[in-house]
């Protein structure tokens, strides 16, 4: 049983961390889309 728990703990860690990374990636693309809608102001600022 202990081996199963060890594997589960490592798998769970990676699922949570990669899940958060995936959430950030989705958000990044949504922001890029929003940036395309307001390009002029952001171009003058950045």
């Amino acid at each position, binding site marked *: *049983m*202990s*081996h199963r*728990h*060890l594997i*589960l*703990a*490592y798998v*769970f*860690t990676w699922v*949570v*961390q990669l899940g*958060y*990374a995936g959430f*950030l990636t989705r*958000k*990044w693309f949504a*922001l890029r889309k*929003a*940036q395309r809608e*307001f390009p*002029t*102001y*952001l*171009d*003058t*600022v*950045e």
Partner: protein
Amino acid sequence: MNPHSNGAVRFPAQNGLKTNISFGNILALAWTALTVGLLVQGFRQAMFIAPTEATMGEIYRIFYYHLASAWLTFLFFLISFLASVVYLSARRSNPLRALGADALALASAEMGVVFCTVVLMQGTLWARPVWGIWWTWDERLTTTLLLWLIYSSYLLLRRFAAGPQMQTLAAVLAIFGYADVPIVYFSTRWWRTQHPSPVIGGGPDSGLDPRMWTAVWWNLAAWLAWGILLMTLRYRMERKRQLIEQHAALRALEASLEPVAESGSESGSENGNNGPERGQR
């Protein structure tokens, strides 16, 4: 518009080599490669190289991820705490710095909650085979759960509350919420808990076998690099979102002023000039 600015790489160029690859992108790629390398090495050390523990056997290998995640939870909540202090102190005198601090507070709090979630779940999965129970209302476990709840409520506040006071309220919550971190850390010293003694400064019966430290440091470095990578990405996204929000507010202001501007400069509209030029905003 520059006809060459269509996102393509120009090679060769008249004024030297010009590409869309910036120094920031190269740094991000190098940091990502370093992080992946560290994570692979950390996993290898924890699973295959570190010696097996005498009483618990293989299950103790959760420890290497568990300890790194716990320490990084404290670190990212500390960053959120400090950034919230900067936000509160600078929000009137230096709004630009305050906005940057607010973005950093949010990014680090999110990263802290992710690590805290991982710590709690690893703890329950470790407790079941070792203690025979999934959970106990032990002081260390309870205060850690409380910490998770406090910063989860911080994120919910930021997600669902609106209005100008939201950031101030969130900063206050982050500062007071951080008071739980020392309680979590010292809980195993102040009370007799089921949770093991601390690995550093925990007294004569605590501490680690010297052979275990190599895997501890590798995993700590690996998850620190991972945390910094995601936190930086989140910070940059939040800064971008702040800019877009400001732009939307400016557009709304422009729209409300348009009838006045049009009536005052009809001759300009006839020449195709429909509003202020880019540089005038």
